[in-house]
């Protein structure tokens, strides 16, 4: 009887500190990675500016949120940012299309090599990076409002009588639900609509797509709109869940690329899988399992140390490790994408 309580406590502990955070962080990474993978599939280059596109989308959301709040508009228990999101997506999509028209289309006309596109995207990354700092500054911004917790740790403890509490933030549930909706919508679009199929055809075999009369400029345009929408959504969900710091999105680029490559670059489904793999590895590797083992181990055994593989400062090392491992062992990724 006592051992089963320990078991439940261990389960709650691991859900609270590993499973739930990894699910929401994984969803954020997945949304980012799907955008990277789509751009790669259609435009055939790794877009380094994707993280900054997320930052820009989140910044736009924050400005609109503030404007709404100043007018007294809110969405009750939900964050006001959700109301701002569609407008921010529109602005970010316009920006992405403008960048494509003014920068990337030049290299397409000149049939530049993929590496030229990559370097151009690094330039775009620095440009957007600076733009976001000029517009909103470098400070940490918390723009979450509405109800913070769906389940509070203390209430959970009282309800269940367990010594471990389970806290569920609204943003965590929102992240997961919105990510699932966005991904389902994306797959419906790619599998069922004429334009979506044309995008897949273009990604599969560009020459044959051209021979079939598919308009490449239209495919590219739709790709940027989708990538910008997903980037904004991912950026805002991450910002709501934690906080908005411009530099964070630059750091996020690594786990996002790791996720896209692990899953198989060019494969949207793989990117989602990769997002969760990276998130779970990162959080598992940096979590201190001391208490968890204390509950599970028989008798009074308590581990000497924290039972933590890496300190949280090293969490990006996990992405690096996964990235290198996949490139060495299976460069095409889990779902057999292209090789970078």
């Amino acid at each position, binding site marked *: 009887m006592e051992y089963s309580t320990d078991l439940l406590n261990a389960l709650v502990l691991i859900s609270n500190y590993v499973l739930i955070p990894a699910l929401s962080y994984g969803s954020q990474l997945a949304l980012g990675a799907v955008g990277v993978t789509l751009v790669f599939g259609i435009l055939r280059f790794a877009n380094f500016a994707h993280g900054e596109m997320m930052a820009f989308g989140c910044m736009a959301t924050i400005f609109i949120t503030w404007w709404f709040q100043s007018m007294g508009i809110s969405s009750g228990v939900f964050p006001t940012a959700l109301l701002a999101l569609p407008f921010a997506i529109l602005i970010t999509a316009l920006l992405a299309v403008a960048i494509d028209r003014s920068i990337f289309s030049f290299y397409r006309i000149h049939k530049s090599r993929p590496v030229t596109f990559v370097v151009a995207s690094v330039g775009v990354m620095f440009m957007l990076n600076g733009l976001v700092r000029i517009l909103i500054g470098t400070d940490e911004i918390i723009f979450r409002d509405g109800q913070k917790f769906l389940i509070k740790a203390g209430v959970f403890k009282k309800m269940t009588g367990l010594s471990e509490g389970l806290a569920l933030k609204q943003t965590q549930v929102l992240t997961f639900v919105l990510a699932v909706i966005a991904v389902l919508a994306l797959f419906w679009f790619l599998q069922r609509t004429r334009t979506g199929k044309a995008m897949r055809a273009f990604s599969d*075999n560009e020459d*044959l797509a051209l021979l079939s009369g598919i308009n490449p400029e239209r495919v590219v345009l739709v790709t940027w709109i989708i990538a910008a929408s997903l980037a904004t959504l991912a950026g805002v969900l991450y910002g709501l869940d934690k906080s908005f710091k411009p530099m964070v999105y630059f750091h996020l680029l690594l786990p996002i690329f790791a996720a896209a490559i692990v899953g198989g670059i060019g494969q949207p489904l793989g990117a989602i899988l990769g997002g969760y793999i990276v998130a779970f590895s990162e959080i598992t590797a940096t979590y201190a399992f001391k208490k968890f083992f204390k509950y599970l181990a028989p008798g009074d055994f308590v581990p000497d140390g924290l039972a933590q593989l890496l300190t949280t400062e090293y969490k990006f090392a996990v992405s690096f490790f996964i990235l290198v491992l996949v490139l060495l062992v299976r460069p095409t990724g889990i779902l057999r994408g292209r090789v970078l």
Partner: protein
Amino acid sequence: MSYLIGEQLTGGYGGPDIIRECTVSVDQGEIVVVVGPNGAGKSTAMKALLGMLDLREGRVLLDGQDISALSPQQRVAKGMAFVPQNQNVFVTMTVEENLEMGAYLRRDDITETMEQVFELFPVLKTKRRQIAGELSGGQRQQVAVGRALMTKPTVLMLDEPTAGVSPMVMDELFDRIIEIKRTGIAILMVEQNARQALNIADRGFVLVTGENRFSDTGEALLANEEVRKSFLGG
């Protein structure tokens, strides 16, 4: 005058000329085969007809209209369909989606055309939900030809459709191509398997180093001593 004519075509891929004053023509309801040794510019001549090549001289006429200035996509819209030699199907898409993409330019109902393709290649109907990349070589060629037929073309151009398939599959494919010809489509084909291809051809062109060497009916070319010795292995 023939339905599709490439007249005195001269050009290459930016470098030296690969074809020189090369003339190829095909009529509706006719199979024309272009044969010749490796590097003779057979495929290049066909690509020139489709506008995938910078022509320095010559012109392309479709149904009496000069289409030399049109892009490949515009020519496809005009009724020219092309089956490339390699990578001629969307390997990550289903058979049905491949056919749908072939009909991308059409805004009308495509189910009837798709049924016709399935009638021509019954095996594709049973595999319509299968990914094209998982099909055998011969079945892939059928998907490739089917995709091209989805635009309801007036001219069908095939670049070595039997490359890499077994002799049995080749015979089967040639039979289907004869069936397509009977619907009144003009068929232009580049072939390595010269003897078999000339057997089903109404007319043939023998290209050597980018120039016309012989032009005659398929039968006459097969009977021609010199053609046999030089290009058909005796």
